[in-house]
């Protein structure tokens, strides 16, 4: 996966970052079914997160990809067409509340040598998850720019031993709950 550059989220040849959410049956091979649709159009998946949804038996995929609206619309239609996919949507950053989580590992010796630990923690709202003789593990949640900002600041001051960022998770702002509507529609069809 390419190095995420959220500048593209604003505008770049009419392209921007889209968040695709996919609700599927809980079955083996679903990720493959979805990813090949991105592959066929030569689209990079920037981030990916998968978990059970609030509804039993339904899995939720959150995928981000940089492209234009015409393409993402076709991709979502192709995903939606798969039998095991219940529903797929795409959103822009304005449509969703979203979050990522990042973990940072640094050596305890270097960390203590920073001198301005309290300022750093306040500035980035860092949580310390672990502190031992050798290492400190910090956690930061936020948007890409925020987690990346901390990484860059740490990198200028000390050696970041390990750094990891999760895929995006998101929730829509809209008043309409489209998945619930969809499931109600499916129930109605089933009863016919």
């Amino acid at each position, binding site marked *: 996966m390419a190095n995420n550059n959220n500048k593209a989220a604003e505008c770049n040849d009419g392209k921007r970052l889209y968040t695709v959410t996919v609700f599927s*049956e809980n079955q083996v091979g679903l990720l493959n079914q979805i990813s*090949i649709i991105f592959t066929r159009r030569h689209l990079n998946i920037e981030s990916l997160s998968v978990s059970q949804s609030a509804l039993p038996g339904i899995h939720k995929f959150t995928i981000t990809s940089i492209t234009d609206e015409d393409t993402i619309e076709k991709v979502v239609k192709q995903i939606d067409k798969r*039998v095991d996919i*219940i529903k797929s949507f795409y959103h822009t950053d304005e449509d969703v509340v979203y979050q990522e989580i990042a973990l940072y590992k640094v050596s305890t010796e270097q960390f203590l040598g920073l001198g301005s630990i309290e300022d750093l923690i306040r500035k980035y709202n860092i949580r310390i998850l672990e502190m031992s003789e050798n290492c400190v593990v910090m956690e930061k949640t936020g948007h890409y720019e925020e987690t990346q900002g901390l990484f860059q600041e740490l990198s200028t001051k000390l050696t970041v031993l390990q750094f990891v960022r999760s895929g995006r998770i998101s929730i829509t702002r809209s008043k309409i709950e489209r998945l619930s509507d969809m499931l109600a529609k499916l129930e109605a069809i089933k009863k016919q």
Partner: protein
Amino acid sequence: MSNQMKGAYILMESLLKENVDTIFGYPGGSIMPTFDALYDYMNRFNYVLTRHEQGAAHAAQGYARVSGKTGVCLVTSGPGATNTLTGIADAMMDSTPLVVIAGQAGSAFLGTDAFQEVDLVGCTLPITKWSYQIRSAADIAPAVAKAFHIANSGRKGPVVLDFAKNAQVEMAEFNYQKCTFTRGYIPYTAINPSQIDAAAEIINSAKKPLALVGQGVILANAEAELKAFLEKADIPAGNTLLGLSALPSDHRLNKGMLGMHGNVGPNIKTNEADVIIAIGMRFDDRVTGDLKTYAKQAKIVHLDIDTAEMDKNVKVTAKVLGDVKDSLPELTNRLKEAKHTEWIESFNEYEAKEDEKVIRPEVYPTEGPLKMGEVVRKISEATNNEAVLVTDVGQNQIMAARYFKYTKSRSVVTSGGLGTMGFGIPAAIGAKIGAPERTVCMFAGDGGFQMTIQELGTIMEKQIGVKMIILNNNYLGMVRQWQELFFQERYSSTPMVNPKFGAIADAYGIKNKEVCTREELDAAIKEMFADDKPYLLIANCEEKGMVYPMVPAGETVTNILLG
């Protein structure tokens, strides 16, 4: 009451519940328990042993295309399964209902590179509607039910069942329930009245309407509905390759075929029409040519069952989502009766031009070597234009599609989307089995015929009365044509050194005749249709025949070469 059965028998019973009457297949290691069960069902299925699994897949396609039923293939794991991939991809492109059941290594061995293990679900995900691995006997009946539901509903297509060996031999309770619903899959959308209204308004205001008829009409059995629609509003129609025969060739409003090698009229008129009504077609690049210049002046109404086709290649003004069997009558109801006499007559000059420059020289030559077009037309007429046409791919396909005539629907079985050479012989086998009362004429080139030539063995064994015609020009003709036009006549890899096709047919006990002249051709055609036995006619045609008209790939649809 207990109804315990072995998995392989559950499969047999499940297929009977789905009214399967014909199975095309080839046995092998990991499907042996199922073939053992099949031995007990030989009086209930017409089982056809092809000579290669690709043949089984294409035969099942041919069967499905003429009958409307789901074609069924039964093969073994590994190479048996991968040999069906071309047929599966072909069925996906051409929306052909197919269920391919392939053996698989036992569940316990999966992922260990066991003998003849291949990740078939992984291989087929991009080329199937649904692909599923059956790992236990209890899973068989529901999987088969779901497979048939998915394959032959909505936009039809292929389904793969990857049948682990342990599931074939384990015992389970057999209790078959037909599948009518699967969450997340809505095959038929209720027609939206506001979409109908919007479409009707556009069509009612049209001065120069043109309908583009695709295979969706045939798949939906909506031929009568199409006719009523066109006739009420007096709309001329062009057909896609797969849409041919939805409307009889001689219907007043049938203006011929669209696209690269289609008729001049409907292609020219595509860029003159004010309203285009696309019915069960998908704006394939072979139909549209350059999208940037395609029908820009027209409002486009698109009727299709597959929402993913809407706005995919061409942006539409109004869409009508749903089965055209449902949407066409509703749309027709809202149409005003109209006459577009002047518009329809404006096709005539192009018809006359094409007739003079292309059709007459191709179909009615009086001297020189045989022309592909004349062979096709003579054979079509010898069947009273009532036969099923099966083609291979290449010049033979286009010549056959253009010069065969159609009086009945489901009369064209050809590999449109995938363009699979080698499709012809096995598809013809399936077509004859699917429509035994009809004459089946299969046209192939000398190249494609040799790609699945082994299926002559199937024809011999089952005495399948297909009439095969090789339009032999000792070239891979279509590629040669492109080389002549676009590659400075550099005939790279296209001249063919051919065997004596007649001697091969003799070896299979298939009556045959090789012809070079018009007199020989007439006599051979007579002999070919004298009985209902298989027959091979080898028509030696001019070597450098060309298929015209031609819209070169990627060019504007009105940029038509006439020769």
